[in-house]
């Protein structure tokens, strides 16, 4: 493939722009006022003062990752209607966010928590449970960061560049400004990224069907292609339960991820979090149309080697070079924001829930920020090495398992917001059984997200994360009933720990 010089120049221009913004961000929004004495609240949560709009851009840029923009249309292109499960998922996540996340924000705000594991330790007083939640968060995030790189690799390849140097260079730049500016960097860059993505998608949504003869033509071209494969544009009967359970389970998992928590905790008020539950679906609407690009590719007769290349190929076919460069820059920058927030979220967990309790209990708030900055660098280098030296399938499989795992933190985090009945030993047992069962089921089928269970001779195929969560809750409930008040000792230790 030849290098597309015009597209490449536009790409480099926007990349340079966000790099400047990334470094300048350390002085943005009160960042410079504290001088050199920044603590972890400053670096890791941007000073906890982002209002509704900044939070909207940050969370929007953070949740709808580059890994969304390429694989969702790729899934539509390859699997048809089933790939659309991302849309109901991205709708029902928000009623959940509206009810749950403001409560968590309030607890975090009152007690100065930086991570979900901070809340878990504060609420249950168990170092074991805190460790379990933090470890799950870090492990689930690592492959997710690596996949942002995959998203970026796709557009770099689309520009005609080969080799791993461009990807490594982009990531080093990202690592450096995240190190210096913390969460303020992705928050500021998210403005640029989200505006670019909105422009690209709106243009694509209007112009692509116009060039291809309207949405009717798009759907009939896709329909013909799927009819040839013996499928239709709707779900097969056997796909309905996997579709619904994947949407439901993924929606419950979304806000358990450290990068979602970080975006929520950085908000200025619980009201800003609530308003974001109302406003964030705007991105979901966009996601629906991004997904349909997978069908537009059929109408445009795009030929690709792998499904993941479908969006770059569609743009290369239909748009002038400069706009292709703009679109690729939007997707590439789209990888930077979540990668930055994810590495900050993982670094916050490491610092607060591993370093502080086990390595240096007397670490100062400034010391915490120093540790977190170093860890954010290490996390990114690790992700880069993972992509450069291991097969991509490894990261993909791990990310899928990560989704199953992160869902197992749900009872500990969410139930704790609504009462004190469940205690740490029961929740820990539930977490462990969900983790083991979920990994086993996922790996049993060659790392697939769904598993078929035979109940009374009928096969029910459901999302493994959700099945594992059900087991997790049952185990936690049964053990809590058995232990009864004997688990209550942890509350007094929680108070002692909070007082200390």
């Amino acid at each position, binding site marked *: 493939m030849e290098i597309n010089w015009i597209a490449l120049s536009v790409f480099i221009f926007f990349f340079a722009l966000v790099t400047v913004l990334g470094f300048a961000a350390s002085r943005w929004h009160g960042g410079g006022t504290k001088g050199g004495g920044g603590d972890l609240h400053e670096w890791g949560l941007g000073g906890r003062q982002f209002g509704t709009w900044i939070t909207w851009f940050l969370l929007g840029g953070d949740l709808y990752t580059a890994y969304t923009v390429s694989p969702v249309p790729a899934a539509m292109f390859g699997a048809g209607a089933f790939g659309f499960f991302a849309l109901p998922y991205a*709708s029902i996540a928000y009623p959940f966010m*509206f009810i749950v996340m403001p409560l968590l924000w309030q607890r975090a705000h009152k007690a100065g928590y930086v991570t979900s594991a901070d809340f878990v330790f504060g609420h249950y007083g168990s170092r074991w449970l805190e460790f379990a939640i933090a470890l799950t968060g870090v492990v689930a995030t690592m492959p997710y960061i690596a996949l942002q790189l995959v998203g970026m690799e796709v557009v770099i390849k689309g520009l005609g560049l080969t080799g791993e140097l461009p990807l490594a260079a982009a990531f080093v730049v990202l690592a450096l400004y995240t190190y210096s500016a913390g969460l303020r960097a992705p928050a500021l860059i998210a403005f640029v990224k989200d505006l670019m993505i909105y422009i690209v998608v709106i243009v694509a949504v209007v112009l692509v069907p116009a060039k291809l003869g309207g949405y*009717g*033509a798009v*759907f009939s071209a896709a329909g013909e292609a799927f009819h040839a494969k013996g499928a239709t544009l709707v*779900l097969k009967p056997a796909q309905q339960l996997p579709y*619904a359970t994947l949407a439901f389970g993924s929606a419950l998992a979304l806000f358990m991820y450290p990068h979602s928590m970080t975006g929520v905790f950085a908000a200025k008020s*619980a009201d800003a979090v609530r308003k974001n539950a109302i406003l964030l679906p705007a991105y979901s*609407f966009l996601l629906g149309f991004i997904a349909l690009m997978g069908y537009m590719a059929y109408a445009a007769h795009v030929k690709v080697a792998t499904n993941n290349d479908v969006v770059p190929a569609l743009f290369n076919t239909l748009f002038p070079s400069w706009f292709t460069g703009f679109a690729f820059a939007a997707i590439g920058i789209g990888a930077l924001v979540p990668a930055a927030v994810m590495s900050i979220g993982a670094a916050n967990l490491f610092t607060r829930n591993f370093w502080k309790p086990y390595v240096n209990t007397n670490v100062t708030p400034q010391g915490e920020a120093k540790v977190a900055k170093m860890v954010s660098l290490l996390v990114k280098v690790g992700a880069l090495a993972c992509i450069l030296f291991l097969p991509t399938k490894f990261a993909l499989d791990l990310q899928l398992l990560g989704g199953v795992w992160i869902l197992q933190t749900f009872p500990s985090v969410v139930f704790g917001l609504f009462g004190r009945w469940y205690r740490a030993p029961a929740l820990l047992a539930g977490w462990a059984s969900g983790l083991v069962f979920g990994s086993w089921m996922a790996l049993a089928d060659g790392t697939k997200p769904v598993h078929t269970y035979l109940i009374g001779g009928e096969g029910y195929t459901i999302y493994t994360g959700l099945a594992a969560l059900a087991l997790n809750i049952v185990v936690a409930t049964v053990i809590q009933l058995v232990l009864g008040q004997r688990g209550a000792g942890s509350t007094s230790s929680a108070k002692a720990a909070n007082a200390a």
Partner: protein
Amino acid sequence: MRILLLLPFIGLLLTPLYNAETPALFGFPFFYWYQLVWVPLTSLLIWIVYKSEKNKGDE
């Protein structure tokens, strides 16, 4: 009012409600436009709950 927030779950998780190609709208098969319509509808429902809680002075 919070009961309204259950509607998106019902409308979107019961796939037999919408797993059909017709009626189509602007060229979109039912399956697709139905789920797209639920996005702003979900937003609207959350807004209604938000407003009602704000007026009651919850919090």
